[in-house]
């Protein structure tokens, strides 16, 4: 009996914040931002509180997949420096708690989105969680160097869910929002992976630079950037964003391609690293600006 007591004392009592950390709050904030854009760009008026509730439960569904991802990936999170302080490797939350927490929140968020918005949006959220946790985390992340492309698809669904929460359907416009994030994710993460591939090597995650080499990764980054550029401008070309967006997105996309070309040209030493960092940092600004412009325009149009 004394054994039980001493073992229990060594277990740190989890704080509320540890469970919040399981939801990957930073990823969640991106989900809120892109889902809100999808929801507001949709040409259907929506009650502000229904909009708020939809975004809340889309974000919670995203958080739930984060918790399930941390449950499954606890073994590699222990190895990588970037993830070593996550709640499970840090010993603050047990794997079972994370699993239960993730499953419960998945169920709540899907049912609540279905009730507050519509069941198509609810089903779409359920599919996204399934896709991120089962298809990406469990199946493809550790088996293919194209893992980022697959994971990117899961990250690109939120604006489509936001759109679906209002319209109850999928459309070309919402698919374009999906494509922007889908095409953006690979160059964004590969630029980071080129700088930090030591961690992934240690954890045996087959990131592209580890498996296919740095030259191949640079080619991939350039190709995806060239594909991303027209997609970034597409909202204006298709007529659901203003010429202001058209000009701004053209300039941003050209800069993105120029920085990707820089990564492609500089192959060695510090200049190569600096080029990767520049592309990585600009890519965050790029995505933020595109969605902020779309969001801003739909807010102005709504007044």
């Amino acid at each position, binding site marked *: 009996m004394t054994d*039980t*007591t001493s073992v229990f*004392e060594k277990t740190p*009592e989890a704080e*509320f914040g540890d469970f919040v950390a399981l939801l990957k709050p930073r990823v969640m904030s991106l989900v809120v931002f892109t889902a809100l854009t999808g929801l507001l760009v949709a040409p259907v008026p929506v009650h502000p509180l*229904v909009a708020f*509730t939809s975004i*809340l439960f889309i974000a919670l569904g995203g958080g739930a997949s984060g918790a399930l991802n941390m449950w499954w990936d606890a073994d590699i999170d222990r190895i990588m420096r970037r993830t070593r302080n996550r709640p499970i490797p840090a010993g603050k939350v047990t794997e079972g708690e994370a699993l239960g927490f993730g499953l419960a929140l998945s169920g709540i968020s899907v049912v609540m989105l279905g009730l*507050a918005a519509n069941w198509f949006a609810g089903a779409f959220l359920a599919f996204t969680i399934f896709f991120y946790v089962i298809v990406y985390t469990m199946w493809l992340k550790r088996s293919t160097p194209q893992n980022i492309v697959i994971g990117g698809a899961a990250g690109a669904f939120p604006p489509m869910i936001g759109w679906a929460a209002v319209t109850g359907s999928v459309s070309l416009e919402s698919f374009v929002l999906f494509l922007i994030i889908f095409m953006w994710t690979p160059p964004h993460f590969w630029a980071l992976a080129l700088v930090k591939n030591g961690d992934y090597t240690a954890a045996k995650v087959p990131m592209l630079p580890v498996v296919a080499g740095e030259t191949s990764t640079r080619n991939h980054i350039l190709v995806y950037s060239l594909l991303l550029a027209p997609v970034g401008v597409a909202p204006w070309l298709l007529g659901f964003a203003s010429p202001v967006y058209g000009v701004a997105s053209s300039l941003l996309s050209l800069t993105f391609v120029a920085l990707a070309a820089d990564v492609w040209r500089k192959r060695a030493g510090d200049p190569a690293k600096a080029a990767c960092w520049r592309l990585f940092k600009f890519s965050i600004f790029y995505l933020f600006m595109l969605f902020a412009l779309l969001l801003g325009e739909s807010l102005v149009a709504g007044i």
Partner: protein
Amino acid sequence: MADQDKGITLTDEQKKKRRARSVAIAVVLVALVVLFYVVTIIKLGPGVMDRAL
């Protein structure tokens, strides 16, 4: 065997964390109750009054 009766005892630190967690869960639950109530009213709209008498 006197220990056996005491069972598991939490340290003060653990008790404090557990309490903070319980309070936070309570706040979240109350917020959800309010949210569900308001969303129900909005979804039903004027239909709330529309019932057979």
